[in-house]
Structure formats: C-alpha cells, structure tokens
C-alpha cells in the first residue's frame, strides 16, 4: 500500500510526538506519525526523575550554569552551540509542557517543584542545585501522556504498530542524498507499506537491548540507527554508551537518580559511603559515568554485597517514609515487587545497567541529518531524541537532560521538517521502493537456515556486556569484533518458522536482531578506535583523556564493499564559552 504525507515522523515517544505536534502547527503541510508500538507505550514513559531546566524555583539558577554542567558532564565533547540552545530553550519548553496540562509536582507557592540531580550544580560546579522539574517519579510518563493527549486533541494521524524496514534515500542529479520516504511493515496484517514523504523525522530511540542488563524496553533495538548505517551513512560517537549506576540488581530496571537527589546514599558491603573517595565534592550526585565506574571498582575489589558479591546497595532508610513513598512511589513499588525489598526499611540491591546512547544519527542543531563529517546533509531527513546525536550529551549525559533533549530538539526538528516540506516537492520514488524490504522478509520467511535469532541475540547481549561495557580494553574489544563477525555470519542462516501474515512477532523480532548486530558492530569499532578515556568511554589501556588527539567526534561508516569492516572518520567538536578543563567533582 502507498501513502503520501508532507512530513512523516517515525517514532511516537517524547521527541516524535513533540516533532509531530510542532510540525502540525504549520497548516500548509500534512503530518503523520508511524510507531512500532502504541504511542503511550514508548520508552519515554519509563523516565522517572525529572527534566532539568534553570527555572530557579527552589534556589537561584541560570541557563549558563546549566550549559556549563552539560558541557562538563559531557567531558567537553559536547557541542557548545547545541548546549547553549538547549539550556536556554529548555526553560520555555518546560513551561510549554505545563501549559499543555502536564501535572508537575508543586512547591507550596504553586510553582513547579524542582530537586537535585547528578552533575547539576550552581556557580559552575560549587554545589548541587535543584534543577530537575519533576512529576513525582513519573516525569517521563507524564511527558509522554501529555504529548499524546495533545496529539489526540490536534487530530494527529497515527499509524500504530508499524515496523520500519527501510529508508528511501537516493542521490539527486547533483549527487546530493535525498530522503524520499520510508518502507514499513504493518505488524497486524503483514502488509508492506510505502510512505512517500517530503521530509522524514526519525525519533525512534536507542538500542539498550544490545546488552544483557539494561533499563531499556524490549523494543529498543536500534532499528533506525542501523538502517541509516546500512546505507553507508555515519553514526556519530557510538562509543559513548551510558551505564546508569542504579539498575535493580540482575534485572536492570531503573531506579531514578532522583533517589540520590532526595538524599539516597550508595554503600558497599561494609556499609561504607564509597562515593566520598571518588567524588569528594558532590559524592553520590556525581555524573553517571563516574558513579558507574566507582561501583564497578568496588565490585572488582571484592566489596560487593550478597553471596556472589555482585551488587551494591542504595540506602534510603535514613529518609522519612513520606519522602520515599511520597516522592519516589514508583521505584518503591518496583523494589517491593521485584526484590521483595522495602526501601523504607532496607537498602536496595543495585548494579549499573545499560541505559542511554549518547551517540546516534548525526544532526545539526535543527535536527537535519548529516551525511558525513563535513556538514553535507541528507536532504529531507531529520532526527531527534536518543536516535540522534546533536551532541548535546557529548561523552556522558547528565540525568534529566534526555527529557530536555526530547522537548527542545524534537520541537526544533518538527518545525524545521515542516518548513522544509512546505517549500519542497515530492521527489520521485525509485521504481520498486519496497524491493529491499520485501527481499529481507522473503529471505527470513523462506530460508532453510537453522539458526535461531533469539540465541544469537542472547550471545550478543552477553558478549557486549563482557567486552564493551563500563570498562574496555583493546583485548576485550578486539575479541568482540570477532564475536560479532561470527554472529553476523550466523544471522545469515536465521529463518523464521512462523509463516503467517498477521502479528508475526517471530519475524519482527528476527528483524530486530539484525538491527542490534549492526549497531553493535559500529559501536564496537568506534570504541576500539578511540585510544583515550572520556566520559562513558573508559579504557583501562588508555586511562587518561587526551584532548590533543581525541577532542573530536567519531563518525563510523559501514564499508559497503567489505562487510564487517567499519570506516572511521571524524568531525570537530564545536567549542565556545567553556574551555576544556580536567573534570573533577
């Protein structure tokens, strides 16, 4: 089936809905949203603690301080033009959400409540500041619900439960790359649809499911990043993958940093508050990369808790019950449900959990997708949110800045995509735009191979966890390169047993495993290439940051002529207001 929209948004989480809402305000263009899930099930809904904005409702705050924290938090790999736009715009964006009805928690004077979060400080690093605007511990849920509610109000057209199979990107007469639409599988019928569009906004999230222990939903499999990469287009800074310090032990379910913002303390097996040794100034509220590494060091030195000494403890027992149950009700429920632990009375077993991709599809500050490190665009293509890398987060994202990213850059991408579509015509589609997608499905459905996609995924997740997680070395990553080559070869022999058309979830999962393998390949090559430690990329064989050689973004391209080979290019970091300095807290 064939569809035509001026603007097509892929993904219906925070950034996709924000894009669609703001694109729809342009009455000269038609807009539709395509989502693998029902929109309210997008993973933005799992974000808990807050959205950072320098409202100054609790104590003095300024956008410059927020910008500084973001740049320093990103270990100076953050593009400072993006950080400046962000720190200024997020203030208005938060007020806009409130005007859309978002139910923020409130202070006694009726203003939006704010609390402390990791790496957010006053006066350029002096002390923690209350910057996270929150709605209990359901801030992401409230943002997702509010934006979906507004989409219903605005009559946005949705295609729910459609899985993207391909992007239609062709060269124009001048050799410039142009996006002309999307090919997708309607999961409920098995039908392949072609969406012809003047502009496409990719807002499809991350790929935490490449790792064994992750806070991410089962649906976060890097689909659109991989499809972009398969075209020979670059993925930026994939080596920077964030492990959140506090996932529920073994399960990885997120426990918000807001728990430490409210006064929670990390302790090792002997009850020691170990963060005092690693970040003496802001202790448990140090940025995530530092806390995750500290936890890893504690575990490695035998100070873990439990019979296998494989987890640490998040202690909230000194806080009043009203704070724990009142401001952190969901995580209290999670601990009780999944661990049988009552956080009011007992410390909660935690371990770092794969959480967030700082890297992704490179974009300009208006969300335009970049075709290389020289500023060339894929015309008509935009990206926002976790799938994108505008390089706001640099080498490490501060807590709350993902929700801020969604609303600021989702909005900018939506406005830019609509403006572009308004002045563009429908570029001609290739003769059989869905040929590649149909071939893929045919191959999986009629193949005679004996490989099981789920087993390949399990091996991928376990080996990525062992070899490319919190600490890496040349040895572990080189090993992973070989593992991935083997898994890629085995993936070619995957066949799907389910031959039915409707809701063939064996097929959709097998496709997702292919996406995960590709993004893992790009990520591992990027990490192996960067011979320094910066932010979330911590190499034991190169423990120091090296600005002279590595103050630059990685651009990883698939070598289309040699499968398995990854080509690495670079892009300069946009510096500005804040000079790179050693990063101490």
């Amino acid at each position, binding site marked *: 089936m064939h569809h035509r929209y001026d603007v097509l948004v892929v993904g219906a989480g925070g950034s996709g809905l924000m894009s669609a809402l703001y694109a729809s305000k342009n009455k000269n263009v038609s807009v539709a949203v395509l989502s693998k*899930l*029902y929109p*309210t*099930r*997008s*993973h933005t*809904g*799992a974000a808990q603690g807050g959205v950072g904005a320098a*409202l100054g409702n609790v104590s003095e705050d300024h956008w410059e301080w927020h910008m500084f924290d973001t740049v320093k938090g990103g270990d100076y790999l953050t593009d400072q033009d993006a950080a400046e736009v962000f720190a200024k715009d997020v203030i208005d964006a938060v*007020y806009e959400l*409130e*005007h*859309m*009805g978002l*139910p*923020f*928690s*409130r*202070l*006694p*004077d*009726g*203003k*939006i409540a704010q609390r402390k979060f990791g790496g957010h400080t006053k006066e350029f690093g002096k002390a923690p500041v209350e910057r996270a605007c929150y*709605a*209990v511990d*359901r801030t992401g*849920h*409230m943002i997702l619900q*509010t934006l979906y*509610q*507004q989409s*219903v*109000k605005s009559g946005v057209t949705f295609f729910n439960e459609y899985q993207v199979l391909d992007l239609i990107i062709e060269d124009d007469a001048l050799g410039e790359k142009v996006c002309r639409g999307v090919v997708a599988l309607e999961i*409920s019928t098995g039908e392949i649809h072609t969406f012809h569009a003047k502009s496409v906004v990719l807002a499809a999230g991350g790929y935490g499911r490449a790792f064994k222990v992750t806070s991410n*939903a*089962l*649906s976060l499999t890097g689909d659109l990043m991989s499809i972009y990469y398969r075209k020979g287009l670059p993925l930026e800074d994939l080596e920077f993958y964030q492990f959140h310090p506090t996932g529920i032990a073994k*399960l990885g*379910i997120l426990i918000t940093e807001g728990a430490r913002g409210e006064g929670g303390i990390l302790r090792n097996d002997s009850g020691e508050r170990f963060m005092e040794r690693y970040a003496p100034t802001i202790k448990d509220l140090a940025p995530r990369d530092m806390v995750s590494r500290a936890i890893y060091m504690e575990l490695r030195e035998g100070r873990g808790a439990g019979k296998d000494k494989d987890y640490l403890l998040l202690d909230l027992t000194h806080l009043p019950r009203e704070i724990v149950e009142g401001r952190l009700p*969901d995580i209290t*429920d*999670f601990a009780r*449900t*999944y*661990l*049988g632990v009552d956080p009011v009375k007992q410390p909660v077993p935690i371990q770092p959990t794969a959480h967030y991709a700082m890297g992704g599809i490179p974009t300009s500050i208006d969300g335009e997708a970049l075709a290389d490190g020289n500023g060339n665009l894929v015309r008509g293509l935009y990206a926002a949110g976790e799938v994108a890398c505008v390089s706001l987060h640099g080498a490490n994202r501060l807590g709350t800045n993902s929700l801020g990213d969604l609303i600021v850059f989702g909005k900018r991408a939506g406005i830019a995509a609509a403006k572009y579509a308004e002045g563009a015509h429908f570029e001609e589609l290739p003769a059989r735009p869905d040929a590649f997608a149909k071939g893929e499905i045919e191959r999986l459905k009629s193949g005679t191979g004996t490989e*099981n996609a*789920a*087993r390949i995924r*399990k091996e991928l997740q376990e080996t990525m966890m062992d070899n490319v997680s919190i600490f890496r070395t040349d040895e572990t990553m080189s090993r992973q390169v070989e593992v991935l080559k083997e898994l890629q070869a085995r993936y070619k022999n995957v066949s*799907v*047993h*389910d031959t*039915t*058309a*409707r*809701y063939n*979830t*064996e097929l959709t999962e097998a496709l997702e495993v292919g996406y995960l393998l590709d993004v893992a390949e790009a990520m591992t090559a990027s990490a192996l290439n960067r011979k320094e430690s910066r932010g979330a990329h911590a190499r034991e064989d190169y423990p120091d940051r090296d600005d002279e050689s590595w103050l630059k973004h990685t651009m990883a391209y698939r070598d289309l002529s040699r499968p398995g080979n990854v080509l690495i290019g670079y892009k300069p970091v946009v510096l500005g207001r804040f000079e790179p300095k050693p990063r101490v807290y």
Partner: protein
Amino acid sequence: MFVNLKILRYNPEKDKRPHWDTHKVECEPGDRVLDLLNHVKWYVDPTLTYRRSCAHGVCGSDAMLISGRNRLACKILVRDLTKDGGTITVEPIRGLRVERDLLVDMEPFFESYRAVLPFFINDEAPPAGERLQSPEDRERFDQGTKCILCAACTTSCPIFWVNGRYLGPAAIVQAHRFIFDSRDHGTERRLNILNQNTGVWRCRTAYNCTEACPREIPVTQLIEEVKRAVMYQQV
C-alpha cells in the same frame, strides 16, 4: 523449580477455535510471567504471540488474564502465583476481539479513551511562567495520572463484557484526571459526555476494576467521584 505454563492459543489463520497449550518451564520463584512467555517464544515455540515492551509495569503492553485475574505479565512473579510443580494459566484479556493468542484488538479501547476529551482544555492565554497550582490541588487528581492505558480495568468489568459501548473504567479515570485538575476548563463538556447512557451510570460498583489495576489506582472510587460530579454538576 518447574511450573506448567498453560497458554490459551488462537491463530485465526490456522485455528477454528482457541485451544490450550501447556509447557513445562524451568524457572526461579522471582521470575516474571513475561520471562516464562519469552522463554517459550524464544526457545520452544516461536509462533507464540503477545505484546510486551518495557518489562517492568510502566508501558501497559502485556495486560493478560493470568491465573484468573487481569494483570501485567511483567509485574506478576511466579512466587506470587504458585509453587514448584504448580500451574499458571495465561489467557487474553476479555471483551476485546482476540487477534492472535494473547494479543487483542485495542482499537475499541482507545476509541473510548478519545471519546472523553482526554486532554487539557484551557483557552486562556497562558502566563509567561507556569500556571500556579497548590500541592493540594495537584494531589486531587494524582491517582488518575498513574494510568498506563493497559486496559486491565476495563476488560475486567462485567458491564463492559456485556455492553461494549460502555466507555469503561479506564476512560472514566482519564476524564477524572482532567475534571479534577484546577487548571482545566473542560469539565462541563466531559460531564455531559459521561452523563450519557454509555457513561458513568453503567457502572454497578463491582470493584473488579480496582482489583485489576496494576498501578493500584482506586478506580471505583474515582468513578464514584465522577458520578457525584455529574449529579451535582460541580467538582
């Protein structure tokens, strides 16, 4: 430990009627029912079909009828259902058409959702900053904001089973969330919708919805509050 996982299967492309499949599954007492379903799908029978996403009770994808009660497969643990050697039954939620196995057509559910004007209405120009709201006014509608639209409440309601035109508990909870929000101006319009014969008066206070809610929303109480608001035309 082992449990017998008994799943109601139905693929309209192949089956004339639903049938039970039973799998003996090795598991831990702390495993989620979703883990068991995933195990069967990934390593035993890949044709098994259900929705799932977040796997920790916040996205609402995997509401099912599990051992006789509506729950989220990712939020109910084996140890809360049975012991070693016991049986767990899994069926699709009731009252919505089964598309395949445990997966139902959600469209009628979202149609009811859209019918109650589930969005903030206030046409006055907003201030430069936030609209102020006291913590007490914010607290007034907190319960409804927890809703994840999983449909566990609506599909446990006997009135909904016999009359699919009843908007159902989830839609009323969504309306409540806005009716009792001090910033919202759409109350009258929503109360008129809920005063129709598809609205709140269908509720017979069976409390099934409250028992089914995986987010512990006191659904029946919220419906009662809406009934009172309709009766007295004020909140």
